[in-house]
């Protein structure tokens, strides 16, 4: 009996077409955290700015949104761990070389000062400490919105690592849009103008920055356009964000427009995080994304 031997005539430059870098093992909690933490971070700044500007209703809403996001973030992160009961091991070292370590400390600090500010404003005690806590929360907040992009960029996943200059700005814009959209949904229209501006401005910036990121990635951006796992989210993100911004812009001071438009912008931001997240899987699965740029680099060196 003659046995057939399998050969690979098609692509000699790969091992049966299998990916080189591993697909991430993170689960659904992570993109939701990226969104919730990012929204909270931007909302901390919105809360303080609105208070300083004398817009107390907006300040209260933004503060509540920040607090809600920071409250759900740690449970999401802990649940994603392979060994959740060991989450405190995150705090046994501080490592600059690990954006996850830096982020854990930042999130711990930000959530703590937010809690302190909330407790003190509820009791009306220690105004100076409260003041310091509010300013600290506003100063730390934006880092929670962008460090998550640094975390993704500091990996060997081509679509993340090669977007290291743009990804933090995408997350920043998306966080701004979410913070504005969420606040605009809960604040009466007469006090919500800054939130609407933030939502619309953030959404437009998000769309532009995603475009820029994809352009600079060149062929590595393929997962966003045609990736089995990423492309549906990427398309949804663009459509929802654009529709939300348009609704809020055309609806002006009408409350229903703020609610519908705000929800669309929030949906767009969630989809955007999922698109980036899943693009990592598509980027890892095909060896051409890993080999292509590296081979070009090696050949250029000679």
């Amino acid at each position: 009996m003659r046995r057939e031997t399998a050969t690979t005539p098609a692509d000699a430059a790969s091992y049966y077409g299998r990916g080189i870098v591993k697909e991430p093992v993170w689960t659904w909690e992570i993109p939701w955290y990226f969104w919730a933490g990012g929204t909270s971070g931007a909302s901390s700044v919105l809360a303080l700015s609105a208070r300083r500007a004398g817009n107390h209703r907006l300040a209260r809403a933004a503060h509540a949104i920040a607090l809600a996001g920071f409250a759900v973030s740690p449970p999401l992160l802990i649940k994603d761990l392979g060994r959740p009961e060991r989450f405190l091991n995150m705090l046994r070292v501080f490592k600059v070389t690990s954006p996850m370590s830096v982020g854990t400390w930042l999130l711990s600090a930000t959530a703590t000062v937010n809690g302190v500010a909330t407790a003190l404003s509820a009791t009306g005690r220690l105004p100076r400490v409260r003041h310091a806590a509010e300013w600290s929360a506003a100063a730390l907040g934006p880092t929670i919105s962008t460090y998550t992009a640094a975390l993704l960029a500091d990996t060997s996943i081509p679509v993340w690592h090669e977007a290291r200059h743009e990804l933090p700005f995408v997350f920043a814009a998306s966080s701004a849009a979410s913070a504005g959209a969420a606040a605009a949904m809960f604040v009466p229209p007469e006090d919500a103008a800054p939130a609407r501006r933030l939502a619309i401005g953030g959404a437009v910036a998000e769309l532009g920055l995603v475009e820029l990121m994809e352009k600079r990635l060149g062929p590595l951006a393929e997962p966003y356009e045609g990736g089995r796992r990423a492309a549906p989210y990427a398309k949804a993100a663009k459509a929802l964000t654009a529709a939300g911004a348009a609704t809020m812009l055309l609806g002006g001071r009408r409350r229903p427009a703020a609610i519908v438009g705000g929800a669309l912008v929030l949906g767009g931001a969630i989809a955007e995080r999922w698109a980036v997240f899943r693009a990592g899987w598509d980027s890892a699965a095909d060896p051409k994304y890993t080999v292509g740029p590296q081979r070009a680099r090696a050949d250029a060196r000679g």
Partner: protein
Amino acid sequence: MKLFASGTVNGPAAYPDSYGAEARERVGFFTDTSLCIGCKACEVACKEWNLVPTADPVWTGESYDNSRELGANRWRHVAFVEQRVPLREADAGGDALRWLMSSDVCKHCTHAGCLDVCPTGSLIRTELGTVVVQEDVCNGCGYCVPACPFGVLDQRHTAYQEYEEDGRVWKCTLCYDRTKDGLEPACSKACPTDSIQFGPLDELRQRADERLERLQEEGWTGAQLYGRDPEDGVGGFGAFFLLLDRPEVYRLPPDPVVPTRHLPQIYAAAATAAVALAAGVVGAVLGGRR
């Protein structure tokens, strides 16, 4: 607290200085794939010595490779490259089936991405210069998995003996329990052709240079050392290879770079974006009517 677990990312490695008088000579593997016969004794010996759980073999239908890849439950993996390629002139030319075999393993990089990004300090560099996961510390955050440029580490999902519902990451330890007592790792010990050689890294590099020279003299034009160069993107491998073709043929990245090499750029972008975000929010509040 340790700020730089493996030394400055772009500069010289902290090891061996970090260990002071306790530092020992850096050891590693030289895997000479030109000698590999694909017997998989290394895979088996590794599993036996390290109590690595079984992973169901898969009928790939491509080659004799039914263990597919390195992962939490496979710390040595023998690749079978089967391709129809032109023969050497010396072998009368023509077309033939080429069968390349190669035993892959963790590279124990000089600048290890997995170690750099590990947020718990579970991943360490040992006094022998190898990279090891401390399983009693690992909390399964999974950051090292996509950080590794080679796709070596993975999370273990199998329940096995005392490791029920594991969730931690596992990889080659270069048999830390054996090497620290002066024994050679299980895989190299079991290798019947000396395709896997263990020893002090300097000695292995010298031996590899001589072997490469000989193969090139014999007309193996594709022969090359992979990971021998201390100036490469990961500062050289602790476990390096002699390949008979380009790395990507064996599913190895042709020019790996530790992701943390670009950390200054990454942090700069994140910090700038955070400042821009704050400015944008303040601008939206102050920039017009209520």
